[in-house]
């Protein structure tokens, strides 16, 4: 998630700005780790169906790669559209 979406820090005193910025960093770290976990869960669930072996076969691996890349591209596009809507809402105020 783009940091700029999380708010405008310019109006704060220096000390609070530092603390707020540290908080945002922590939220972003947590968010990327959660995203990683969700992506694994999603692509595993969609792509791995048989448990006759303990290693991924070629087809499953291809599916997982495409799933992950597609999700990342999707997520980027959603982020762009979402930012546009946010900007529209902000200028309406």
């Amino acid at each position, binding site marked *: 998630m783009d940091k700029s979406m999380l*708010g405008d820090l310019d109006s704060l005193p220096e000390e609070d700005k530092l603390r*707020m910025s540290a908080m945002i960093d922590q939220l972003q770290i947590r968010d990327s780790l959660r995203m990683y976990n969700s992506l694994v869960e*999603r692509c595993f669930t969609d792509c791995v169906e048989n448990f006759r072996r303990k290693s991924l076969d070629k087809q499953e691996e291809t599916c997982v790669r*495409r799933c992950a890349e597609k999700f990342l591209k999707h997520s980027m*596009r959603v982020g762009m559209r979402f930012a546009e809507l946010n900007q529209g809402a902000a200028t309406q105020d």
Partner: protein
Amino acid sequence: MAANNAPTELDKEQIFGMAEKEMEYRVELFNKLTSTCFNKCIDKRYKETELNMGENSCIDRCVSKYWQVTNLIGQLLGSNRPPM
């Protein structure tokens, strides 16, 4: 008793806590939106790596409609501020 307008330590914690909850809300909104529109728009057979044209326009409309639903339900809940 003299009025004291300086925020106390606890007040300040409240303000930071509030800001934190608000940011968590935005992150969660974005994640739910992303996941919901992925489920609605993306072909799960994963035959290719690129998003095709149909998927792309579905995503744009999905984000737009999700935004409208967020505003609509925000109004119903009696909040008169925008969802972000």
